[in-house]
């Protein structure tokens, strides 16, 4: 992919300190339009903090975040809310609204944030649920859905806002192994549709097959980044490959 235009999302020299501890140290990353970048790294590396910082859910101390070349003036709440509408967020533990059924989960922000009327919003909600393979589950409440279905509702909810970027924070980590596939299949379809995404995950097979770039984070820094075929080529000495082989060893041991 050759890029001539500005990246959809750009983070420059981001530093975040939480509770006196520096969690992100001068992190810079571009996300070109239509690309999928996968964040990997040991837990505590700052992947989750980084994704939440990109949505301004966690304030950063230094640096700049630009969406389509424009940085948000955080002193203007309206600008911040508009920014967040354009940057979708998927959480590890789904965070569906527990008191709303599937279609209301997807349509509530359309009504209350985008000001759509109920009928239009619900029609859009049903369409998005169908897109993630949940037609017929519109009236189910979160407690009546499996983990994989919950995460797909969460994805439908984010997509309904027509985001320019989707940030996914370990979307399959809280799922039973047999449910991981259905969520990854949805994300795979989104990459094929050309949605711009950044995703933290431990699903290396998925990253290898679909990521345009793998970003390896450790201790609040980006240590390595590059195309999966370069970083994961047998025989290279990348940190990414080292981390992955350790990950696979653990998984194999776990299966004994």
């Amino acid at each position, binding site marked *: 992919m050759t890029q001539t235009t500005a990246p959809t999302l750009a983070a420059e020299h981001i530093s975040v300190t939480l509770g006196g501890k520096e969690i992100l140290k001068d992190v810079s990353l571009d996300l070109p339009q239509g690309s999928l970048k996968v964040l990997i790294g040991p837990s505590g590396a700052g992947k989750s903090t980084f994704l*939440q910082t990109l*949505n301004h*859910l966690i304030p950063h101390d230094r640096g700049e975040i630009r969406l389509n070349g424009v940085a948000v003036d955080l002193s203007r*709440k309206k600008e911040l*809310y*508009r*920014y*967040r*509408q354009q*940057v*979708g*967020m998927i*959480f590890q*533990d789904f*965070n*569906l*609204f*527990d*008191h709303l059924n599937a279609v209301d989960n997807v349509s*509530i*922000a359309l009504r*209350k*944030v985008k000001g759509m009327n109920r009928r239009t919003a619900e029609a859009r909600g049903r369409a998005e649920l169908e897109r993630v393979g949940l037609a017929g589950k519109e009236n189910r*409440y*979160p*407690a*009546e859905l499996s983990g994989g279905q919950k995460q797909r509702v*969460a994805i439908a*909810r*984010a997509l309904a*806002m027509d985001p320019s970027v989707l940030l996914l924070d370990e979307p399959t980590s809280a799922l039973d192994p047999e449910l991981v596939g259905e969520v990854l299949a949805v994300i795979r379809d989104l990459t094929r549709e050309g949605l711009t995404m950044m995703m933290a995950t431990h699903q290396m097979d998925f990253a290898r097959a679909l990521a345009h770039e793998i970003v390896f984070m450790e201790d609040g820094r980006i240590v390595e980044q590059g195309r999966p075929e370069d970083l994961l080529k047998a025989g290279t000495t990348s940190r990414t490959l080292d981390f992955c082989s350790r990950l696979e060893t653990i998984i194999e041991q776990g299966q004994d």
Partner: protein
Amino acid sequence: MDPFYTQELIPALNRGIVMSTMLIVPSVIFGLLGGIVVGTARVFGTRPLRVFFNGYTTFFRGVPLMVQLFILYYGLPNLGIYFEAYTAAVVGFILCSSAYHSEYIRGALLSIKAGQMNAASALGMSTSQALLWIIIPQAFRRALPGCGNELIYLIKYSSLAYIVSCIELTGEARAIAAETFRFTEAFTVVACYYLALVTVATYLLHRLEKRLAIPGFGS
């Protein structure tokens, strides 16, 4: 039947229960709304707001309701603020009830996971939109059993209105008892009236809880 009941006691108590209902219904509605506002401000408000409403709650939970009513009815005229007996009683009940409700609401708000607010924010909702559409509807359902308890208390402490000369159920019974010296009969019947009110309230609360129930939520 003894004409004491049919001619004196029952007509007086029926008058009283109308007044009691007029005291209870607005106090319940605005007390609950006030409790939601106060409880939410105590959890999500700015620091000055939190300090103010914490102080409010401390005062209204810490001072006997009777003393509050005396202040409203007999004390405030010294400052040039005059309330009718009925208004003083309703205002007193709302203020007191809100303080107690706010504690149930606060507890329920604290039990809602931070992820709910994060998810709402990530969709572009403002804090007040997230509170109104996501957080409070969940917290209210969790707080409802506790709030119901407070509502039932309120039905009974509405009897304090008679001490600021707003003659409701207890006031009527007391007047008749004092006139006829038939205290046992008068207060036994009045007890049945309160029991009936509380039974109706319990039934309505149960209906409301069922109506608001969501599969798998709060269980």
